[in-house]
């Protein structure tokens, strides 16, 4: 029996208005008679309209995957059944997603995008999301039977499944050095180094819970890494920021002194800027915290220094279970230029994942584990020395046993001397 178009009065209301409508797209696919996805999309619209009417979701998970991997496919089976326990919308009864990792920085040729469309028109629903919150391309809507051939074709095109479940997850990196003067690192290399080193932990989920890498090339952190990554890598620099005084003068001349004082000088969080009488800029680089504000505003006049590297922060995550946690500094500065530098980053990330695998409780993120055991135990576990850049302020309560003080003080002086 041919599948008919269902009435969708609720969804139809999302076809009007100036913003591009996903409903119009869904209906275009559903009305594409003769195409393998048309009936699936008719029934998908039927189920979605039901959700809009009842305000309830109707998908459940399950176990669907590809040969050789334990994750990367998000299985979805309908829970909308009739009185005989048969799916109400049978053509969309299986509607799985393949998470496919994009090229680092989300660059595409039109050629590869059309090939994605061809594969998904053949095996899937014709519906693709660029991109999910995980950083994957989400090929949404596939029968169990078609998951394997769809993956095989995309895998042969050079694309691989991303992470799902208790595993190393798909990473994200900003456009960075490809098109941004603020870039302090080779974001795509860091991203690929970290994720591709741990593909076994991505494709065969066996960690306590998820572990995410995100890479931003400067402290503007366009990838939200500090809030969302278990290991955030944020580009920075440690020498003086660069000032083109002629361009500073041009900026002051164009915008006026009041504008510069109100929007640049007094917005510096550590009062490290001062406007000289001749409209040049004085910078107290020792007290600059690399927040990026002045550089963001005066893009021609100011730029990061030459001695670039990254800051590493661990433990960022959203609410569940103990509440939101920011990533916090574990390595204030790390040079990333030579192959040996990258090997050191890989090794450190490996130590973190090993420690997480051995010490986190089930369904506990790295930040929650650190909250439970304390940062010092984590640092000792991964072999990283303490540093005052790791704290906002020292402890404010005396509830700690400190009979090792003399030894610890000695260690500090030895490290300073070394």
């Amino acid at each position: 029996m041919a599948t008919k178009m269902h009435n969708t009065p609720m969804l139809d209301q999302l076809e009007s208005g100036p913003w591009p409508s996903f409903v119009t797209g869904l209906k275009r696919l559903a009305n594409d008679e003769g195409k393998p996805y048309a009936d699936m999309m008719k029934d998908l619209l039927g189920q979605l309209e039901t959700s809009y009417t009842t305000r309830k979701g109707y998908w459940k998970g399950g176990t669907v995957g590809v040969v050789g991997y334990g994750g990367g496919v998000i299985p979805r089976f309908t829970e909308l059944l009739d009185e005989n326990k048969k799916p109400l919308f049978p053509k969309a009864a299986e509607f799985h997603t393949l998470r496919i990792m994009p090229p680092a920085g989300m660059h595409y040729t039109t050629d590869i995008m059309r090939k994605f469309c061809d594969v998904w028109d053949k095996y899937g629903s014709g519906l693709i999301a660029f991109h999910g919150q995980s950083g994957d391309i989400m090929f949404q809507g596939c029968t169990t039977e078609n998951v394997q051939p769809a993956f095989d074709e995309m895998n042969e095109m050079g694309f691989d499944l991303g992470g799902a479940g208790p595993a190393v997850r798909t990473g994200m990196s900003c456009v960075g050095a490809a098109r941004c003067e603020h870039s302090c690192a080779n974001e795509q290399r860091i991203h690929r180094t970290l994720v591709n080193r741990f593909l076994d932990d991505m494709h065969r989920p066996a960690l306590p819970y998820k572990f995410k890498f995100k890479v931003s090339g400067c402290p503007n952190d366009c990838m939200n890494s500090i809030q969302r990554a278990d290991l955030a890598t944020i580009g920075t620099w440690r020498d003086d920021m660069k000032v083109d005084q002629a361009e500073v003068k041009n900026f002051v001349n164009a915008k006026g002194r009041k504008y510069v004082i109100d929007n640049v000088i007094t917005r510096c969080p550590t009062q490290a800027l001062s406007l000289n009488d001749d409209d040049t800029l004085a910078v107290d680089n020792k007290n600059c915290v690399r927040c990026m504000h002045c550089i963001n505003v005066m893009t021609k006049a100011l730029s990061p220094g030459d001695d670039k590297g990254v800051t590493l922060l661990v433990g960022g995550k959203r609410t569940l279970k103990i509440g939101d946690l920011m990533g916090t500094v574990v390595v204030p500065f790390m040079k990333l230029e030579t192959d040996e530098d990258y090997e050191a980053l890989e090794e450190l990330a490996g130590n973190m994942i090993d420690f997480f695998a051995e010490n986190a409780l089930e369904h506990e993120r790295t930040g929650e584990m650190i909250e439970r055991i304390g940062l010092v135990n984590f640092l000792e576990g991964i072999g990283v020395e303490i540093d005052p850049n790791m704290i906002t302020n020292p402890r404010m309560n005396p509830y700690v046993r400190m009979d090792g003080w003399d030894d610890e003080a000695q260690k500090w002086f030895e490290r300073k001397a070394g």
Partner: protein
Amino acid sequence: MSAPRMPIESGVPDPFPYMHPTLKKNFGQWKYHDRPRPGVLHHVAKTGEEVWTVRAGTQRQMDTYTIRKLMDIADQFADGYVRFTIRSNIEYMVTDEKKVQPLIDKLQAEGFPVGGTGNSVSMISHTQGWLHCDIPGTDASGAVKALMDELYHEFTHEEMPNRVRMTTSCCQINCGGQGDIAINIQHTKPPKINHDLVANVCERPSVVARCPVAAIRPAMVNGKPSLEVDEKKCICCGACFPPCPPMQINDPEHSKLAIWVGGKNSNARSKPTFHKLVAAGIPNNPPRWPEAAAVVKNILGAYKKDAKDYERMNEWIDRIGWPRFFELTGLPFTKYHIDNWRGGRVNLNASAHIRF
């Protein structure tokens, strides 16, 4: 029977084969940028080469016809290359300034808004919702479409004090992330438990362990092993629902929307912050969620009018204080705004700093 095909474990693809040639050639060599108009970035390399990026909003969940249309535009105007931003905007890179306006005209003619740069309201980062999630309290694509229709002008213009980054989440796990404004499901009733199914579907000790307030305990109900919830302790977060679907938390009436403001991931000026609760009890009202849209527009209006240049939402509120925020927006201040979670005392005013 032949052996199954084993995957090529190739990982994250090398971006360089997919990167616009001018970006590839000037990798790491960019000097500065400016924004000639909303939706357009102009980058200049140390070599003197220039590239104009035209940014357009998409519906994120795209049918292949839409994708092919966007690709035809890329072939016609942008050398056959595109990239996407973290907020699902598409970017076209062009090296000839003369192509910028025709590209903008073409995108607009095809229904794609050009904007999302600088101090605009960019596309709302969002989740899956009823379209694909197994635990959603609401839809994502639909709520975002409805809101972006309302905020279209703010996407296509740079009129805000600073950038505004919005998110939506369909449950309290909050996959949408932090935002200047976040619109998130907030359940208000404990889960409804189907005791006939718990023993077969749920790994009970894991479910007990998942609860943030230890409100779940194993129990025999009607002679069957199940779980029970101490409803006095329950915070209605829904954490038990993903590992135990018979503990249904979503409720057509009692799953409400809450609005949070002041999340910021950038280090610019102030340190990164999490967003804070400002409004709740908002009905989950498809297909256009008008009540949520009204609160969002109210907050945006107050921010746009009162904040100084470069102040993000959180920085504006830090300057004017929370009493003034509630006064300017007319939103009610309730006992639920006062944090009582662990560490919540740091959110109290431990000073005599009061604005009169």
